[in-house]
């Protein structure tokens, strides 16, 4: 690291020009990320911004940081983001509700945050220059050495923080064991040999329902025939509507029973049979 005196702003090297250009691209991508009305486009522009940042790290010889940036942010965080977007809603085209109403406040906060960060960085590294020509200052070895010699405490603190987050996630995702969830009614294969659950909307459930659940004398709960019953059955099987106790000819249909309902206010199929 040299002093600023040996460097000037007027004769930039190729690396510096590239740094500036990539920085502009990154900034542009970041601006598009927060302004585009298309949600998934925003996520993809975020990829560009984060990738641009990785290139900046590379140009500053911090190779390790650059690849970790790509690995963590592009490879995992953005994928997680896209996953979440696709899982909830990710319409193709504009999402009108993506615009926030208080954009000016947001802009103010953003500018303030950026100003604070820039001020901190400028104040910290005011006249420090990286010698790009010499040994790489940000190589994996150098990064590792400084991380585990000078910055061990923050590193460990961070790992404890992450551990806490992990434990929290596990606690949140665990179901309460005291409240067992009853199995869903229609689930197949629950209780292998049990009878099928009688389903009132199903008119042909077979003998299992016929022999037990509906008494044959007509005093049982009256069930209406389905409106989409074939009209032919209404004509043929129910010639004597209103007499009550006559079992209809189609024995496997216990639901079609004319017990208490006169022909008047019935479904069309029944009506037809009754008026004959």
């Amino acid at each position: 690291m040299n002093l600023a005196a040996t460097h000037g702003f007027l004769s930039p090297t190729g690396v510096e020009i590239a740094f500036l250009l990539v920085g502009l691209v990154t900034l542009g991508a970041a601006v598009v990320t927060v302004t585009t009305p298309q949600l998934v486009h925003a996520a993809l522009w975020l990829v560009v911004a984060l990738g641009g940042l990785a290139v900046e790290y590379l140009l500053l010889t911090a190779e390790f940081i650059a690849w970790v940036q790509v690995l963590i942010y592009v490879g995992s965080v953005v994928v997680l983001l896209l996953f979440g977007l696709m899982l909830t809603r990710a319409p193709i085209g504009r999402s009108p509700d993506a615009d926030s109403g208080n954009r000016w406040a947001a802009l103010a906060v953003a500018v303030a945050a950026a100003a604070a960060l820039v001020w901190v960085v400028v104040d910290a590294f005011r006249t420090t220059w990286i010698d790009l020509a010499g040994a790489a200052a940000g190589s994996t070895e150098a990064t590792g050495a400084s991380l585990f010699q000078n910055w061990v405490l923050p590193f460990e603190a961070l790992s404890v923080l992450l551990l806490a987050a992990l434990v929290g996630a596990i606690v949140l995702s665990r179901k309460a064991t005291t409240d067992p969830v009853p199995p869903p009614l229609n689930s197949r294969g629950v209780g292998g040999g049990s009878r099928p659950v009688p389903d009132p909307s199903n008119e042909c459930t077979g003998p299992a329902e016929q022999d037990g659940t509906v008494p044959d004398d007509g005093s049982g709960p009256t069930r209406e025939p389905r409106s989409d019953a074939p009209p032919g059955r209404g004509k043929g099987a129910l010639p004597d509507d209103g007499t009550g106790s006559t079992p209809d000819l189609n024995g496997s249909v216990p639901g079609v029973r004319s017990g208490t309902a006169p022909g008047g206010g019935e479904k069309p199929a029944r009506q037809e049979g009754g008026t004959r």
Partner: protein
Amino acid sequence: MNDALDVALRLLIVFVVFLTFPLLVGQTEHKVMAHMQGRLGPMYAGGFHGWAQLVADGVKFAQKEDIVPAGADRRVFQLAPAVALLPYLLVVLVIPVGPGEGAVGQVVDAGVFFVLAVMGVGVLGSLMAGWASANKFSLLGGLRTAAQLLAYELPMLLTAASVAMAAGTVSLPGILDAFEWWWLPWQIVGAVVFFVAGLAELQRPPFDMPVADSEIIFGAYTEYTGLRFALFLLAEYAGIVVLCGLTTVLFLGGWHGPFGADGLGWVWTLLKTAVLAFVVIWLRVTYPRLREDQLQKLSWTLLVPLSLAQIALTGIVKVVIS
């Protein structure tokens, strides 16, 4: 000038390898899969045992109309195949095939991280394709791709870290320089986990739930035709080459061999890679597709603990022997 020529030559070689090796793997898959199923596979294209089948396929793909669905997001849809394919090209660049500087496209200091990071980017292509196709099957495929990537990236990283710990470096040639034969039994669990996780990340059978053709047509690639579809396929096979090469370099000792390590190192690398590619095909033919929940369970309850155990073992041995 000489430097420029050298760089150009290396790039050219890498590019040629990138274009031919996936085709070799693809053709091998055609034939091996056929014979494992009691068939012959392609027999006509090119005359001798259908060696030019994939060339013919390529010609067919090039002739097809390039269709973008009306409801699709045009830009993203068209960009996705490139995003899926290019990362693998970059990875091929850094895989060392032999000892010394001459046998690698470009030495990268943090090679392991570079490789894993760039391979993760490749999956982004599938996500883009899945979302931009405006097709529910594509979206389902994209979702499954993302879920699978999230599940399998972790064990892959952890096992790669285990090797890096053993070698004391994250540079791929550095790892190979430090390799000893007894690393093989030492890191065998890590090798298996890495390979399986890599397979899952490539969405190869039996981990091909994201493209499960019998239920979601072809996942994220459902709407693609012609050259763009061919690029996706090429990406899959390039991914196989990269994964096998990487497993060879990280766990199987790359150019190290029982003999002839000096002149014939690259032969060892290619041989090991080819054997691993055969295993990839073999697994595809043998096993049925894992269900989505089985996929997740395999990763989180088996591979992640195994890789953590491998790291612990590596650490203990490393401390003991140093």
